[in-house]
């Protein structure tokens, strides 16, 4: 009997350890990023690092200002949201409320496929279709630009926005809509003035999820944005994002340069944590 109890306790302990692995991973990631990110910020100075307008890590007098990357990431994400959210939102309302079951199921598999395509494939198609297209259409010397990145990101966040919004809209109680219809509103008025407001937390969560995806995407952006550390003054400029700043120099960096890359990753991580907290806030409200 005693032996049995002992074994039960041991197994309970084992499962507890397995359960706590995720917590351990999050802590490990946070600690590693902070520890490796702080030294460069200390050496460069927080203000110079965050608000310096020039990044010249390999110059004889290196400059480590990441304002161009921060602004590019913010502009790129905003642009992607401005294009992706309206399209995704409208698609979601149609799929949730108007589409026949057949259309809904076909479109949902299409959206799943869109979500499953790997970012390098998006990057490859972007390189050959978008970048060349922008060069021809706008008659600019190089199509690898902020605009190309915005369009690729807008397409890449579309599935997350559609999926999450459809889930939220599907969950709106039928009674709300019936009441509105009985009062004389047309179906479309009902969907947009009753169902959408009722699902607004879920839709907000979908947008925040899209922001997270867009700001964290690296490979596709790396292939279409040009990667020159310019300030993002125009849509047609070759730019570097926070994510691509880390990946484009990591392979050959050392010393302070490499430490500065870790600091960029830390900044990106803080952005993501902020977005995650916002996402959780909306998801919790949606559950209530």
């Amino acid at each position, binding site marked *: 009997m005693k032996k049995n109890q002992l*074994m*039960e306790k041991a197994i*309970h302990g084992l499962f507890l350890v*397995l*359960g*706590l*692995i*995720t*917590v351990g*991973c*999050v802590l490990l*990631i946070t600690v590693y*990023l902070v520890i490796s990110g702080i030294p460069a910020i200390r050496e460069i100075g927080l203000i110079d690092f965050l608000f310096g307008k020039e990044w010249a890590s390999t110059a004889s007098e290196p400059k480590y200002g990441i304002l161009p990357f921060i602004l590019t990431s913010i502009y790129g994400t905003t642009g992607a949201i401005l294009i992706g959210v309206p*399209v*995704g*939102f*409208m*698609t979601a309302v*149609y*799929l949730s409320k*108007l*589409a026949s079951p057949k259309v809904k199921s076909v*479109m949902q*598999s*299409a*959206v*799943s*496929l*869109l979500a*499953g*395509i*790997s*970012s*390098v*494939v998006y*990057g*490859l*198609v972007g*390189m050959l*279709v978008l970048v060349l297209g922008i060069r021809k259409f706008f008659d600019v010397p190089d199509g690898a630009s902020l605009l190309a990145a915005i369009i690729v990101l807008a397409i890449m966040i*579309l599935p997350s926005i*559609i999926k999450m919004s459809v889930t939220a809209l599907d969950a709106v109680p039928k009674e709300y809509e019936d009441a509105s219809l009985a009062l004389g509103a*047309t179906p479309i*008025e009902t969907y947009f003035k009753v169902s959408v407001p009722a699902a607004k937390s879920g839709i907000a969560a979908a947008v925040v999820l899209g922001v*997270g995806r867009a700001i*964290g995407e*690296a490979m596709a952006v*790396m*292939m279409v944005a040009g990667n020159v550390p310019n300030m993002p003054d125009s849509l047609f400029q070759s730019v570097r994002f926070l*994510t691509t700043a*880390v*990946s484009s120099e*990591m*392979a050959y960096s050392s010393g302070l340069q490499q430490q500065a890359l*870790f600091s960029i990753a830390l900044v*990106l991580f803080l952005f*993501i944590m902020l977005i*995650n907290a916002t*996402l*959780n806030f909306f998801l919790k409200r949606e559950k209530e």
Partner: protein
Amino acid sequence: MLNQALSNKRKSFELLMKGLMLLSVALTAALTLFLLVYVLLQGIPNITWELLSTKPSYLTESIGILPDILNTVYIVLATLLIVLPLGVGAAIYLTEYATNRKVVGMIEYAAETLSGIPSIIYGLVGMLLFSNHMGTCLMAGSLTLVIMNLPTIMRTTQESLKTVPQSYREGAFGLGAGKWRVVRTVVLPGCVDGVITGCILSVGRILGESAALLFTAGFAHAVNGMMDGLAAPGATLTVALYVYAKEQGEFGVAFAIAAILMVLTVLINFAAALVQKYFAKRRSL
């Protein structure tokens, strides 16, 4: 009839919204179709037996992706082998053992946080945690992917565990079974569908991953057996695509890989839908 009663303002709202919705749906559908057709059309003509069955050679100036295919298989197998016990164990702890709500909340919050972290950060941390100690190799990449896929396996297993009726557990306890016996004989068989779904989703995610592997698994193209392969640096298909397209301008090869990845994505989505349907049917019986 109804429409005649509507004011102009309401009518134009109807029309506008309907138009915008149809436009958006058409755009989404067209985009998906275009991507699928474009990648397949550009890629399939470039897929030859020689490409699939050789490694890149400077002597004959030819490119082959056999090593990349093998590396991808190794990394998928190694990752699943490690992540499955961890993820399933964590899910079992959450649904069967945990009594403290604070601990449950903490673990779930951690899992959500993990799934929100972008792959480039995983790549960087993986480099610091694994590659700096064991060298750039497939195993380091695989361990990085384990952390990334942990939340997926946990979530799908947890969802299927919730559908195991409470009465089964009570019945087993009533017959005098201990906790571990109940978990082993009643709970574990009940979460098979969640584990399979989780595996399919994870395979999809691993196949598509590149940023997390670039600095952890590296990009060599050598043909190795599984054990040697895991200890050596190597490019998976996605990483190879990136290198061929961005650094070497070999768009033919890049599109061939893209087409292979596209077909795999379609198959994986299909399999996931099939599994879900199959288990939903069995459950309703």
